[in-house]
């Protein structure tokens, strides 16, 4: 298969970026999208040009590192997969593919397709944890947790922190990301103890870091590679309001 690639190139956060066009040829349909990028980069280096910088690591859809906006969709046109799990058979032979970095004010570009997502770390540092010390805990089976609750907690915990939700949201909101963590812990008895504080401080941090507000368009859910449901946003809202009433 052959493709024309329009890729965003940007030297660093301060420089202006622009699209550049490249061709890749003889790509097997079984090649993954990022392997196609590897091939492009290897060709570029042979031509003495700098390769396209992009984030990636596990290539199994779990580390959350890869982060490309492909043909207008976060992680590309396929549903429920990260960029690294997309294969070239999903694209039409001979087509043009547009590749951009995440576009979000809270995720400044570092280079080309690489963005700075440390804002997500900061939100979690604001309260996305249960304050237990190492070795100061009861037996694992001391608190039975209904299977349905554990399962729902796991649904939310599937979030890989890739940033697709905020990059997709027209308001640049990180609500789905914040909700995933808050909701995952809120479904468990261990997480309830600090529930009110957690919801308030994580939301406050999200606002402080320049993420937008949620207007319930559901775009985040549609683009989430882990299909985290916006039902968790409802739970976050409930947790947040309940916490405010406690004040």
């Amino acid at each position, binding site marked *: 298969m052959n493709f024309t690639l329009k890729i965003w190139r940007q030297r660093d956060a301060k420089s202006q970026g622009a699209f550049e066009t490249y061709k890749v040829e003889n790509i097997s349909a079984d090649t993954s999208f990022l392997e196609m990028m590897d091939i492009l980069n290897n060709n570029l280096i042979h031509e003495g040009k700098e390769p396209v910088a992009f984030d990636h690591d596990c290539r199994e859809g779990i*580390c959350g590192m890869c982060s490309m906006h492909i043909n207008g969709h976060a992680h590309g046109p396929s549903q429920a997969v990260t960029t690294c799990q997309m294969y070239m058979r999903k694209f039409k032979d001979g087509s043009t593919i547009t590749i951009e970095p995440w576009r979000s004010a809270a995720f400044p570009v570092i280079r080309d397709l690489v963005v700075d*997502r440390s804002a997500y770390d900061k939100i979690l540092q604001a309260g996305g944890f249960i304050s*237990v010390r190492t*070795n100061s805990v009861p037996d694992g089976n001391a608190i039975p947790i209904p299977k349905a609750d554990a399962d729902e907690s796991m649904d939310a915990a599937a979030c890989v922190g890739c940033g697709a939700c905020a990059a997709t949201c027209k308001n640049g909101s990180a609500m789905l990301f914040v909700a995933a963590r808050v909701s995952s812990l809120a479904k468990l008895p261990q997480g309830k103890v600090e529930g009110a504080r957690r919801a308030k401080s994580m939301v406050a941090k999200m606002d402080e870091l320049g993420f937008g507000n949620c207007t319930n368009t559901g775009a985040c859910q549609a683009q989430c590679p882990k299909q985290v449901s916006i039902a968790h946003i409802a739970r976050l809202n409930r947790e947040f309001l309940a916490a405010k009433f406690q004040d």
Partner: protein
Amino acid sequence: MAYTLDAKTPAGELAQKWSNHKAAIKVVSPANKRKLDIIVVGTGLGGASAAASLGELGYNVKIFCISDSPRRAHSIAAQGGINAAKNYQNDNDSIYRLFYDTIKGGDYRAREANVYRLAEVSNLIIDQCVAQGVPFAREYGGLLANRSFGGAQVSRTFYARGQTGQQLLLGAYAALNKEIAAGSVKSYPRHEMLDIVIENGEACGIIARNLVTGELERHGAHAVVIATGGYGNVFFLSTNAMASNGSAAFQCYRKGAGFANPCFTQIHPTCIPVHGTQQSKLTLMSESLRNDGRIWVPKKMEDVKAIRSGAKKPSDIAEEDRDYYLERRYPAFGNLVPRDVASRAAKERCDAGFGVNETGLAVFLDFKTAIERLGKETIKQRYGNLFDMYEEITDVNPYEQPMQIFPAVHYTMGGIWVDYNLMTTIPGLYAIGEANFSDHGANRLGASALMQGLADGYFVLPYTIGDYLSKKIQAPKVKTDTKAFDEAEKGVQARIDRLFAIKGTQTVDDIHKRLGLIMWDNVGMARTKESLEKAIVEIQKLRKEFYKDLKLVGTADSFNVELEKALRLEDFLELGELMARDALNREESCGGHFRSEHQTEDGEALRHDDKFAYAAVWEYKGIDNVPEMTIENLEYEFVHRAQRNYKD
């Protein structure tokens, strides 16, 4: 000069050793902990849990990781589960049984006392993770669920769907975030350690490269912990993440830390087969699939040919024409034999010509029987995400046709030599998790990597490091304007300059792929004296080529992934040779190390306990010099070493 290796194994009964040791080692008072700095390199399960626990204790901790967030570390990709000796299933599991299975699974090449301690603290890990909010799978009664893994006859594996590593790492990362928020841990993402700094024979800091700006930074500390995982990417194609590398460990080796059993590599039996030359990465299919999946190839060569040509589908092959070779060869463990055994058995069938894809390098993993027995819905619940992933990659629906799988490089049991305190041969330098060598012997059992990472980080290192640091309470802050730091930084700069100056014609990937092929063909699943000698010569040749013909673009003072890769490849080019040398020395077969000259009549690994019941610890002697080997004898006080038997 050979090492004087003291494993510092405590005296006494096996079950008492860790308790006795904890009682005997020194502790540091809270007031003094505040004065002490610790650097942790790597933020996977080992690094994150260690840094969080050390921060909680009151030490000043700095953590470094190469990705954009600690949460990306490759521990996150572990799918199947984590072992613990809880005996929640009432199937007569115990600490001793977990210990015994691990020692036996490692083919009696691990240290008894370390492995026992691992089994002992395994139960605490589950408690810890539950308290952190890790959503482990549960039964309808609300209690924790378990499943089985290879090399065990009990169900002791705890799991969170097919994302156990992710959930455990998010737990450790959350603990870390708590400490970052509290100010006890400072995080340096997108930083790579490029050298260890040693002063007066003790580790005192690192040189790290800021991967965004390219700046070289000096960081001093009273102790340094290496938690950077394994070096499986020396093979180019592996299940490791693309950026996983052996470099931090290798810098320690270059600076004098002993490197133990480098040849012990785990080839995982259930990976998606290689599809062609454009591939950069192999994908693992969790071992948990062997709970319900049955591995087979056709009995008749005509069926093999029909499947390869597409004339027949695997589902067309009648039950009696299928060779469930693991069930045939190992009735007691069946499809749940340890990984090394399963991988070799797949190789044996493929070598005999029964491989089921066009390359002849694939076998089937079939869920037909399980779907008939349990229904599609149950299978979907258990493995849904793995099945989806498989279909995404291969375009084959595994609910209808069996998966195709083949062994691939997955884990390295070898690593930096450590004593019982997890300290390397360099005082003040520690190695934990996959980066060290101590617990898995010659083969690691499934669901034990997560266990070891968290055991070391949460429950072992935070105690043992205090014993060393108790001697440092009077020591001032480490100064980084010293000669040792100057020289280390200059050395790193010289390395970088040298690579840019080559201006050759081959890219990092071009050369890395060739190294990978040399390794896979000669230092892979089956090794011989000839293949290993050949590998050493070829790697040396390739290394010379690297220094003559590498093509590097960009600059050192910017975000430059090619430079990162080139530095890692430079280390792999030496590490590969070290692995081959170690494999050449070890004239026996054990666990994942299979020397074709040493096998039983049935083709099983044949150990030579009289000659090789030791850990081979290598000392660096310069790039083109043969390293020196020192032996740590592995004394077995409590377990009788036997030929491993998974048949009855």
